């Protein structure tokens, strides 16, 4: 199979969906002339024209709200927030409009809107450009939330997101853009709410999403050398959640670790951990362990930043912890 980057996979998904369906358009800062700051829409302006590849002013509240309006009118906007941290500015459009309009109107409308936004730390982008904020969105009914880790997944899930009739918060990881992986040539999609067992195992269930999936895989390799057989579950979509896969795995392993790059307090890891406790308490031989970021603001200094969020060694330690 051919190997492409996560960034290229996103680009292909956007391109294919724009070819497939005229109602799909992309909008955001520096999407057209520059082809996005991460280069994901290079060439799109020439191919699809300025009506479907839109450079916006720096007006996140405005253009995200416009996307809601356009979605209600039957188009399929794919909006980019340059960093997920800027969701603060588009927040009302997302939370009080996109997520709620269908319900508030008693089902009169659909809101087929995708908001793509890179999250994640490690690039020395400091406090306002490095956050992982997915749990804000899982807490808002009406939103679907997706956070893929690999080129294969990001492509298949983005295509699904674009075809989905609900607002989807599509969280990419800026560190993954350059990362390569196998992606088939032909057309495929990946359904929401279907976790991927990236590595089967019998001793511990290790649940991750986004970039931490890759760290989890590395940790599993290391642990295998110590004779610990880790099952790595990549959630891929947080809402809807594939509970069945988690349940089956923990029933088998009796131990679980949840890992994410977001701040631990109030994060999605607590949700997963609690659901495991609620669902399979009697199977648990140890408390579910969270491996997550410190409850701190993200510092600029490289040496400090590396202390904030989980690395492979932290996951290894976390797994060993639940086996003690």
């Amino acid at each position, binding site marked *: 199979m051919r190997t492409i980057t996560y960034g290229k996979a996103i680009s292909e998904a956007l391109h294919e969906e724009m070819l497939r369906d005229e109602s799909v358009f992309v909008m955001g800062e520096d999407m057209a002339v520059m082809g996005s700051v991460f280069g994901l829409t290079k060439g799109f302006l020439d191919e699809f024209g300025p009506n479907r590849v839109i450079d916006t002013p720096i007006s996140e*509240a405005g253009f995200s709200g416009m996307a809601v309006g356009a979605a209600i009118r039957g*188009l399929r906007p794919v909006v980019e927030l340059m960093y997920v941290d800027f969701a603060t500015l588009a927040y009302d459009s997302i939370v009080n409009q996109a997520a709620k309009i269908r319900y508030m109107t*008693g089902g009169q409308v659909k809101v087929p809107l995708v908001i793509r936004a890179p999250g994640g730390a490690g690039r020395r982008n400091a406090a306002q450009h490095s956050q992982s904020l997915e749990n804000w969105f899982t807490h808002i009914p009406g939103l679907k939330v997706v956070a893929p880790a690999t080129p294969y997944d990001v492509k298949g899930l983005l295509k699904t997101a674009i075809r989905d009739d609900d607002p989807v918060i599509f969280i990419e990881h800026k560190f993954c853009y350059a990362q390569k992986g196998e992606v088939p040539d032909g057309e495929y999609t990946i359904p929401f709410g279907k976790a991927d067992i990236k590595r089967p195992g019998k001793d511990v269930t290790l649940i991750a999403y986004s970039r931490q999936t890759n760290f989890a895989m590395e940790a599993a390799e290391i642990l295998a050398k110590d004779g610990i057989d880790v099952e790595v579950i990549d959630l891929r979509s947080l809402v809807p959640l594939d509970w069945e896969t988690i349940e089956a795995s923990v029933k088998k392993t009796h131990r679980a670790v949840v890992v994410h790059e977001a701040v631990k307090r109030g994060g999605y890891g607590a949700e997963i951990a609690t659901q495991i406790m609620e669902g399979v308490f009697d199977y648990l031989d140890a408390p579910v362990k969270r491996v997550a970021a410190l409850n701190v603001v993200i510092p600029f200094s490289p040496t400090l930043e590396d202390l904030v969020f989980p690395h492979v060694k932290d996951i290894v330690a976390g797994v060993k912890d639940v086996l003690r």
Partner: protein
Amino acid sequence: MPVKTKTNTNKDAIKYYREMKEVREFEMKAVELFTEGFMAGNLHTSVGQEAIAVGVCAALKPADLMVPTHRGHGQVLVRGSDPNLMMAELCGKSTGYCKGKGGSMHLANVELGILGTNGIIGASLPIGTGSALASKIKGTNEVTVIIFGDGASNEGTFHESLNMASAWKLPCVYICENNLYGVSTDIRRVTSVQDISTRAKGYDIPGVTVDGNDVYAVMHAVSTAIERARRGEGPSLVECKTYRHRGHYEGDPQIYKPKEEVEEWKKRDPIVRLRKEIIESGMASEAEILDIEKQVAAKMEAAAVFAKESPFPEAYEVTTDIYSSDNERSVAR
């Protein structure tokens, strides 16, 4: 002198009168139900401001779209909605436009192009601007009118929306219902300009202020703006100066308004004014007007009865309509 404008006809005047009266009666009936406890939550009436809803709707073509305000009963009604289904919605009944899930603040009738009133001040502007963007992308020629209050013009979304609409010549019209107050706050105390329409200069678009209690003035200004938008020349800002007679919401004692101001504006009641014009100019007799009024009253009484007699939504409805696909699972956990 509304009756002197050139496009004015007897038929129009009477139609406008009936529409304004319907809005007034609808809302006074809602107040009644509210007071009697059939309705809960926030009820924002537009009593005194009805000429704007009527003037705006008169300027619209069937395919045009509208994003009304949180004070939008009139706008939704005059555009052609069924008062029964509206009143039912205000009472939280399953027969309402939104199955009772929206209420007064979230009235929508998308079939008629009414994209929904909004409880977030300023949110209607980007949504409506996005509707206009959709028209541009689709290459169709409907226009979206976006209605909002004086207070909303101080939200950042006003700025962002008008800028993009102007820069991209989007087919929309921004209509500011300036009733001089945002809740208790005199707009002049918190706003840097006397007339909201002045702000048009900051976006290089036409801005005009009209008497919002003159249905013709509103209709003409909005028509001009809509035509411009339809020609692809971009948005305009139309400010309609008006006044709300009742509290911001039902129950608001309006201690913040000077008595004389209230009295002064009550004299300019748009309904009283048009009624007088019609009768004085002989377009209709008082008897004919009284007859219309009776019909309107009966219609709204019927709406109240319909709403009262309608059932509340069934319990299962609480978890439907959150998602259009995979709803059950996405709500479950």
